[in-house]
């Protein structure tokens, strides 16, 4: 297969196609005509300075921010609500109720995704326990999330994003305030999930944690994607 054919095949099977995406907040343009395609089963690290548009791009992909212009096609449809079951979103804030324990939080969010009904609460509990264990936390921890350390909260937030077993994971700063060892464990977990076929986007300022893990580094600047590199060093050398 020629290189051209290979590129064309990747484009045809793109899991996300973004075309001319513009997002304006008043007079400020957070995204300025982003056009990009992402292939399935890959881990993308989205990098850039503060204000480069990384979080806005992620929120647009999650369907939380409506584009001013342009379009997003995900899993073959432009109706992002129709595919929201296939998307896991982790934001910079935890998206968890501080007054409830991790298990109580996940039980509630599991119901939002229709993960078993009340008669099968055992199934729901086992799924919640599974994702909590996957992020190296204890499902039996009865403490409210508000009393967790910042790192534990980040991991519980990742567990919430994994709850619906999404095909696409959108993670905004998953390693912030997490100690290096736990962050490396989380990066390893993300690599495993990528290997199992998930497409993962990680917005981070801690790019070295994803060196050797991410398939591609996507560099953003002033609301645009300025380059895509296979390794971190060549991107930094730009």
């Amino acid at each position: 297969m020629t290189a051209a054919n290979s590129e064309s095949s990747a484009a045809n099977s793109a899991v996300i196609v973004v075309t001319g995406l513009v997002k304006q907040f008043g007079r400020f343009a957070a995204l300025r005509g982003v056009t990009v395609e992402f292939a399935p089963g890959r881990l993308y690290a989205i990098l850039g300075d503060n204000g480069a548009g990384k979080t806005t791009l992620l929120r647009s992909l999650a369907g939380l921010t409506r584009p001013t212009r342009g379009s997003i096609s995900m899993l073959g449809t432009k109706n992002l609500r129709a595919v929201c079951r296939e998307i896991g979103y982790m934001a910079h804030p935890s998206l968890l109720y501080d007054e409830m324990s991790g298990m109580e939080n996940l039980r509630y969010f599991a119901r939002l995704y229709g993960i078993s009904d009340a008669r099968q609460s055992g199934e729901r509990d086992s799924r919640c326990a599974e994702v909590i264990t996957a992020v190296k936390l204890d499902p039996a921890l009865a403490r409210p999330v508000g009393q967790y350390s910042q790192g534990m909260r980040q991991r519980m937030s990742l567990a919430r994003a994994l709850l619906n077993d999404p095909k696409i994971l959108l993670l905004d700063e998953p390693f912030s305030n997490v100690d290096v060892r736990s962050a490396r464990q989380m990066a390893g977990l993300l690599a495993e999930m990528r290997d199992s076929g998930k497409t993962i986007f990680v917005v981070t300022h801690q790019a070295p944690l994803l060196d050797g893990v991410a398939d591609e580094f996507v560099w953003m600047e002033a609301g645009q994607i300025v380059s895509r590199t296979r390794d971190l060093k060549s991107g930094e050398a730009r």
Partner: protein
Amino acid sequence: MSRAGSLTLATLAKDLRLEWRSKDAINSMLFFALLVVVIFSFSFDPTAEESRHIAGGLVWVAFLFAAVVALNQTWARELHNQVLDAYRVSPAPANALFLAKALGNFIFVSVLEALMTPLFIVFYNLRALGPAYQLPIVAALGTWALVVNGTFFAAMSLRTRSREIMLPLLLFPISIPALLAMVEATTSILTGEYSAKFWLVLLAAYDVLFTMASLLFFETVLHAE
């Protein structure tokens, strides 16, 4: 039960659990309503006959002001840690969230009314001369009118910078017909001078109309930026 119904109950149960643990809404509401009752009792010194004529207005104004305190809390806990975004990215229907919030507020305000009504009776020496069995109907219809609009407008003012001021500015004008019906119905029952039937029908119609309108537009409000 339908998925929307089951999600409404799950969200309601979650809200009741959070309120039970924090007691944010109920404590501030009770304290506020108690202050209003005491201040009103110092301001007026009516005879029993006069009380029957003014109590409807006093009671509902006190409940309206106290309800605003709870209504402001409704969405505050969804904004903390941006938990509302977790709901917005999920496939759960927007109306299940709205109904759960409205039912939760209905329960909180009803608890407040149940606790405050005996105080009003004592402070104002109240006794109904009309059909007293209609009072709980007025209370239920009136409370729903306040909370359904309040929940909706609290959601609308969520993303405004001064949302705690915005809520009463939006809620009070639109509540005038309902407030008028509540006050008139309550006064008619307390004095026994005229029938409350017209005001009850008006209140029921108001409830149906604004519940339908809120359900119709809530999804747009939830996903607005």
